[in-house]
């Protein structure tokens, strides 16, 4: 392998299930202490890649190094894994579950149960059974079960899928804390906002391949394009363009799209339209984000859905959306 400082390294990694190629020639390198987010919709190959890296499945071809060992030979005491859709025995309490997973490691490696529960914010709920915890609490408990051995390298496979935004942010806090302590985190997600928020680098995965990787803001700057101000009126787009002289206006399915409008300029554009008696029915201002980068690089055949790349569109801090007369 090329990078001796890498916690995870893969070269030409390929995994085939019959006719289906789940992972197709992946090259990647994750440095020690780095948070790497692998992003892509369901079926992109993220989980299969994690399985190849953790040694829970055998790649069809390629080389993998995890903590400078083959996955099958790596010192498991140094690894942590939260598998996708993992569910533990649900009749055990939060404390018992942490103790159960702690019991699988040598005593000198195991963290104190109360400290682990405290770290994930579940010290007060330690006597509650898993089945009685909220979705966010359950996920944090599963993260706790993955860090009982203070791992050097932690794999989190879609740790926030299916939980509400508040629960998701609770998990983010835990990951940020682990990262600040120097733990290398390999995270998969289909939430672009999550990848942007948590990771040092993002890998965009599409149909088994990593189509691009880099820091989220660099990817957005390079591939995201400019901001877009979308206006819906009863007037024609040509009429809107006539009013907004000096702006780049184009027609997209009957909506007027004004390119490269800064947040400061939004009110100016609306004033111009109002002074020209153009009634704005609805408008939306959008700055490019990781989702735009993904769409640009992966193409239209991977349109995000509500179940995969959805939530950030309505939660993003950089979106300004409203409806109604005159904006």
């Amino acid at each position, binding site marked *: 392998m090329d990078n001796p400082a890498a916690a995870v390294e893969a070269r030409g990694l390929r995994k085939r299930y019959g006719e289906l190629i789940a992972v197709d020639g992946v090259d990647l390198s994750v440095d020690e202490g780095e948070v790497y987010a692998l992003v892509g919709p369901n079926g992109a190959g993220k989980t299969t890649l994690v*399985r190849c890296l*953790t*040694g*829970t*499945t*055998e790649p069809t071809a390629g080389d993998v190094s995890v903590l400078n060992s083959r996955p099958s030979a790596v010192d*498991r*005491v140094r*690894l*942590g*894994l*939260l*598998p*996708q*859709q*993992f*569910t*533990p*025995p649900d*009749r*055990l309490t939060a404390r*018992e*579950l942490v*103790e*159960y*997973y702690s*019991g*699988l*490691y*040598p005593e000198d490696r195991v963290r104190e149960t109360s400290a682990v529960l405290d770290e994930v914010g579940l010290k007060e709920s330690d006597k509650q059974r898993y089945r009685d915890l909220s979705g966010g609490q359950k996920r944090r408990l599963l993260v706790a*079960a993955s860090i009982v*051995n203070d791992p050097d390298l932690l*794999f989190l496979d879609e740790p926030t899928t299916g939980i509400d935004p508040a629960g998701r942010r609770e998990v983010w806090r835990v990951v940020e804390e682990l990262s600040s302590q120097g733990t290398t985190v390999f995270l998969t997600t289909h939430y672009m906002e999550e990848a942007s928020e948590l990771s040092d680098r993002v890998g965009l995965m599409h149909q088994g391949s990593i189509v691009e990787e880099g820091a989220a803001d660099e990817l957005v700057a390079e591939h995201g394009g400019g901001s877009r101000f979308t206006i819906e009126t009863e007037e024609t787009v040509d009429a809107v363009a006539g009013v907004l002289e000096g702006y780049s206006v184009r027609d997209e399915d009957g909506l007027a799209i004004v390119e490269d409008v800064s947040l400061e300029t939004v009110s100016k554009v609306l004033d111009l339209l109002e002074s020209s008696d153009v009634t704005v029915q609805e408008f939306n201002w959008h700055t490019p984000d990781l989702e735009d980068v993904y769409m640009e690089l992966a193409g239209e055949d991977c349109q995000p859905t509500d179940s995969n790349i959805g939530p950030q569109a309505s939660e993003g801090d950089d979106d300004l959306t409203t409806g109604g007369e005159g904006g």
Partner: protein
Amino acid sequence: MKAEMKSFTRKPAAVFFTFVFPVILVALFAWVVEAEGDLFARSQTHYLPGYLAFVVLLTPLSRLSSTVARGRDHRRFEKLATTPLSRTDWFLAHTIVNFALIAAASAVIVAVTVAAAGVELAFSPAAAAFVLFAVVAFCGLGVVIGRVTGSEDGAIAMSNGVGFPMLFLGDTFIEPEALPWYVSPVVELLPLTYFSRGFRAATLESGGWGFDLAIVVVCAVAGFVAAVALLPWRS
């Protein structure tokens, strides 16, 4: 083991089917046997291996098969595979827990049978060995069933489909001679047959049980090896 035992005690249905259900069946059988019909012509103690088979056979089959199927569906093995725990450790721990539960349930069944029959049974180390090795063998078979079925429901259905016929064909309640001729070879192939004959010989009839124990031990070894090899540690 501690976690497994806690999980068990917090499942009322599991506790019922391991401890109460067999006692109910024993009581029913005892009543049928006492009725002195043609079918159950032997003494109560003759059917003790059959009574014990309710827990020695059915408990590990249903528990291990469903545990394996559930563990695979819930990605528990994938998690365990990245810890220092080995497949052998996992199977041993579950076998020990099952043996402890089955030994306790067996003690209850023996006590009920002795009370019903009004006879005394001496403790025999050989009888304990039969229970131990049979539990290992059937735990192994449970893992195999859990591995080859696609879901937890399928695992339970198949463990019942395998367990209940074996329960009645394994020289427990029905004499092999009373069965149709074409069933006899099947009887000789069932591990439970050797458990029943050996346990009976070791506790009641003072006959030779060495051959039967050897067969049960071979089945236990085969079950152990198959279980460890087939546990779905990797996807």
